[in-house]
Structures are given as structure tokens and as C-alpha cells.
């Protein structure tokens, strides 16, 4: 019966992938963002670097990187005051995404279990009082 969680997770992953594909195609529909991906394919770069290379304001570049990031095509990491961007989505991340969704299913399940246990505890307390008196 552990398979229930796997099934549900699989279902969520399908939805997740569809959402991600939508996000990816939106991200890829823009020439600047495709250029950013090409650039990051050569080497990681900070948002400032990218803004300079594409002759764009920091704010503008941040927006583009945000769209790429939401699509999972780019990951960013802030070290000190510099945010470095690199190409995202590798095999290990897929496993992490699966585990994350599997965990969500278990969270939902255990939250319900908490409720059931809480109710049994209350019942036991009332019954216990009755028996003792």
C-alpha cells in the first residue's frame, strides 16, 4: 500500500512537468533569454555580467533570469553580494523534485494521522476519567 503515495506523486509530477514545460516554452520564446542560456552554457555568470553583455539594466536582466529560474532552466546562488547564474535542470534535480513531491503526499497523510490521533487521545482521556471515578 506504499504504492499509493508513489502513484499520487507520479500524478503530481505529471502536473509539475506540464507546468514546467509551459514555463519553459514561455522562457524560451524570448531572444534575450535564449541568449542568456547560450551564455551560461559557456560559463556561469553574475546578473551584473549578463546585464552588461546584453546591454540591459540590472532590473531588466533580473526579470529575465527570474523567468528562466521559474522554468527551472537556470539556477541562481547568492554569494555575498553577487548572484551567480548557471544552467539548471540536471538529472539529480529530477530525483530531488520527485522526493519533494513524495514528501508533500506524506505530509498531507501525516497531518490527517495527527488529527485522528488527537481525537483518540481526547476520547481516551474522557473514558479514563469515567473509569477512574
Amino acid at each position, binding site marked *: 500500500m506504499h*504504492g499509493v503515495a508513489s502513484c499520487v506523486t*507520479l500524478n503530481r*509530477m505529471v502536473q509539475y512537468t506540464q*507546468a514546467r514545460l509551459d514555463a519553459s516554452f514561455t522562457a524560451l520564446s524570448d531572444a534575450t533569454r535564449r541568449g542568456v542560456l547560450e551564455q551560461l552554457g559557456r560559463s556561469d555568470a553574475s546578473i551584473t555580467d549578463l546585464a552588461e553583455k546584453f546591454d540591459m539594466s540590472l532590473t531588466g536582466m533580473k526579470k529575465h533570469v527570474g523567468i528562466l529560474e521559474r*522554468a527551472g532552466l537556470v539556477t541562481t546562488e547568492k554569494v555575498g553580494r553577487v548572484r551567480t547564474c548557471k544552467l539548471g535542470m540536471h538529472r539529480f534535480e529530477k530525483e530531488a523534485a520527485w522526493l519533494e513531491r513524495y514528501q508533500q503526499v506524506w505530509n498531507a*497523510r501525516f497531518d*490527517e494521522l495527527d488529527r485522528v490521533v488527537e481525537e483518540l*487521545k481526547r476520547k481516551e482521556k474522557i473514558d479514563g476519567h469515567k473509569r477512574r471515578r
Partner: protein
Amino acid sequence: MDTRGDAEPTPTKNRSTVERKSERELVVKRTIEGPARIVFEAFARPELFRRWWVPKSIGLTLLSCELDVRVGGTYRLVFSHEGSEMAFFGRYIDVIPNSRLVWTNDEGDDEGAVTTVSFEEMDGKTLVVIHDLYPSKEALEASGSMGAMDETLDQLDELVGTLGGSAS
């Protein structure tokens, strides 16, 4: 188009942890606010079990739930999902009240995983550890998304790779 519909459920107070412990093992842990005796009961009595094993939010309807919790006893859960029925079944191979439950998962064509649940009580709370041992690495990965989803995501990887990798 707004594609941010991939809403994450809000985090809960006691988070469960999921860990791929080895190529063949998945382990889920969570602390439940109650003594082991009560938590065990919620696993062993079908009328309680059915209330939480299939939380409303996961979009499955549980049609029936039969649990015969004793060594050699069987269980069978039937769900309906998008118009089709799915059954999950197996056998309890170890039952130690308030402390341990082990069951097989026999619904697949091949050898299934063995699930061991242990209940450890401390200060009125119970740490529940659910350990799934699969017969092989492939079986574990096939049970998850890692099989079915790979193809689509790989294609996307490839597409991005042709963009990003074209310069190298």
C-alpha cells in the same frame, strides 16, 4: 500566460522527512503527537486507517479498505482514480503491537517492496519510521516518476543543451 499554478502546499508544523537511504531504500520519518499505542491503532484499525492514509488533498477516493493485521494476515485497498479502479494488496509478515509492522506490496507484476513501519515512543510522542525496501534499484525508480517523467524532461534538457552547449 501565468504558469505559476504549480502551487506548493503550505508547510506543516511537524514536517516529514523523505530520504533515499540507498539504491533500494526509501525512508520516511515523522513525529506524531501521541503515544505509540494510539498511533499503532491508527495503522491497524481499518476504520481509522482509511481516514488518514488517503488524505482528501491527494485526489483519490478510497472505495474499500480491509486490513487483517496479524502475521500472515492480508490487506486490500481499492481506489478509484479518474474513473478507473486500482487495488493495492499484500500480506503482513511481522506484527509487534505498538512497535513494528511489516507488510509486503504485491500489486505489481514483479516482486514488490517490503514496508517496515516502526513506532518509537518518547515523552508521549511517537517517531514513525516507514522504510520501503525494494528488490532492486530499478524497481525503486520504476515505482516513482523517475521512469515515466524522464523522457519528457530529458527532451527538454536536450533542447536547452542545444542552446547552452552550442558554444562549447
